[in-house]
């Protein structure tokens, strides 16, 4: 078991006042809250912070922690000295939190198991409906276009008969309905937590997200593709084969198309109830002047065009 330096986690010194601890927590909680933060591993940091605050905000727990001594280093192998908590009485100040929190082994060794209260199950009676559970799943764009069956694996923390938290893994085959959008939810009746007694199991809610696609982008029900074209295709117009998620199509590029022009294929986006559109965004690719012949063509263009792309800049 590794020693945890709760002061270091909160960026505080050992003689910080209780008020300062609270202020520091507020500030860090806002910074690392997983709903708000874009920091990497915000969730892990937020949990660690919550645990540190759980101890330091409570003068009794803090005093008990302090008397372990200041010579421990974070990550050092730790065993609590015998009778380390003699004379401390924990009134369970922070232990009544509603949430199922998973604290570190270090915390539980010192302050006991606190995430689940033994009385919790009782509050709903003996025959209670199980809780609903939530998960986010990632699917491919093609799954929404064609409909699909996907095998997903879910891990759920569950409490066993001894009151220990164990991670339970299970696999489910899920039907992905055609036309589903990112951010939509699928509800699976009876696939949540088991009920107690004769109570029904809860439901499982799956939030849909899309894996990044190598060349398509999705916005609501619309799908975007950056399409490289040659300067002459853009200038003279052309008929080009374009890939779409449900097969390639022939696209007519109008003459005098510009860089970044958007061409719309109505109804070829996600096949939702109101189907989205497919947008082709033109990207003009320049051939390199790396042969004498190519250079001659560019020089000829230079001679033949009177073209100033910087006209709008007034020079």
């Amino acid at each position, binding site marked *: 078991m590794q020693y945890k330096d709760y002061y270091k986690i909160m960026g505080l010194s050992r003689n910080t006042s209780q008020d300062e601890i609270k202020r520091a927590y507020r500030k860090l909680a806002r910074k690392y809250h997983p709903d708000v933060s874009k920091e990497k591993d915000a969730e892990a940091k937020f949990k660690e912070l919550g645990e540190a605050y759980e101890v330091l905000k409570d003068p009794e727990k803090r005093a008990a922690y302090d008397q372990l001594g200041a010579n421990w280093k974070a990550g050092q192998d730790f065993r609590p000295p015998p009778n380390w908590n003699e004379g401390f009485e924990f009134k369970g100040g922070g232990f009544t939190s509603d949430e199922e929190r998973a604290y570190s082994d270090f915390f539980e060794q010192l302050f006991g198991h606190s995430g689940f209260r033994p009385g919790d199950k009782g509050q709903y009676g003996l025959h209670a409906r199980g809780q609903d559970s939530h998960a986010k799943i990632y699917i491919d764009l093609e799954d929404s276009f064609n409909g699909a069956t996907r095998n997903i694996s879910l891990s759920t923390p569950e409490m066993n008969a001894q009151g220990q938290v164990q991670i339970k893994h299970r696999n489910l085959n*899920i039907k992905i309905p055609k036309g589903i959008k990112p951010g939509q939810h699928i*509800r699976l009746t009876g696939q949540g937590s088991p009920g107690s007694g004769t109570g029904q199991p809860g439901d499982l809610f799956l939030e849909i997200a899309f894996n990044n696609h190598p060349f398509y982008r999705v916005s609501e029900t619309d799908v975007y593709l950056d399409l490289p074209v040659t300067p002459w295709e853009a200038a003279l117009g052309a008929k080009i084969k374009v890939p779409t998620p449900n097969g390639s199509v022939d696209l007519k590029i109008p003459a005098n198309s510009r860089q970044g022009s958007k061409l719309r294929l109505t109804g070829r986006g996600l096949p939702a109830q109101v189907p989205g559109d497919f947008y082709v965004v033109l990207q003009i690719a320049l051939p390199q002047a790396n042969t004498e012949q190519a250079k001659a063509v560019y020089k000829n263009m230079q001679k033949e065009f009177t073209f100033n792309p910087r006209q709008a800049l007034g020079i």
Partner: protein
Amino acid sequence: MSPHDLSLVHTGTVIEEDSLTLAQLCRACDVHADWIISIVEESIIEPQGENSRLWRFSGASMRRARTALRLQRDLGINLAGIALALDLLEELESLRKQIKTLEHI
């Protein structure tokens, strides 16, 4: 798990097409109806339907309600603050998406 279970395919309902009642939303968030009513009154989420018995909630509402709950529990923000935070977070998310799209061009 037996091989029989593996071949079973679960078909769910899409919430956006079959939205949630007040009772279903309460269970999904594990909260009392009072709390949901208070966030509707703060217009943090906006159900369809005239009164609470006819209310229907979208999947987006469920996501907002669950985020609101976490913000309230973890950061101690009041409902007015949560409403503001959620709106700003959504705006931020849509701006980030736009940046991602623009970076491609």
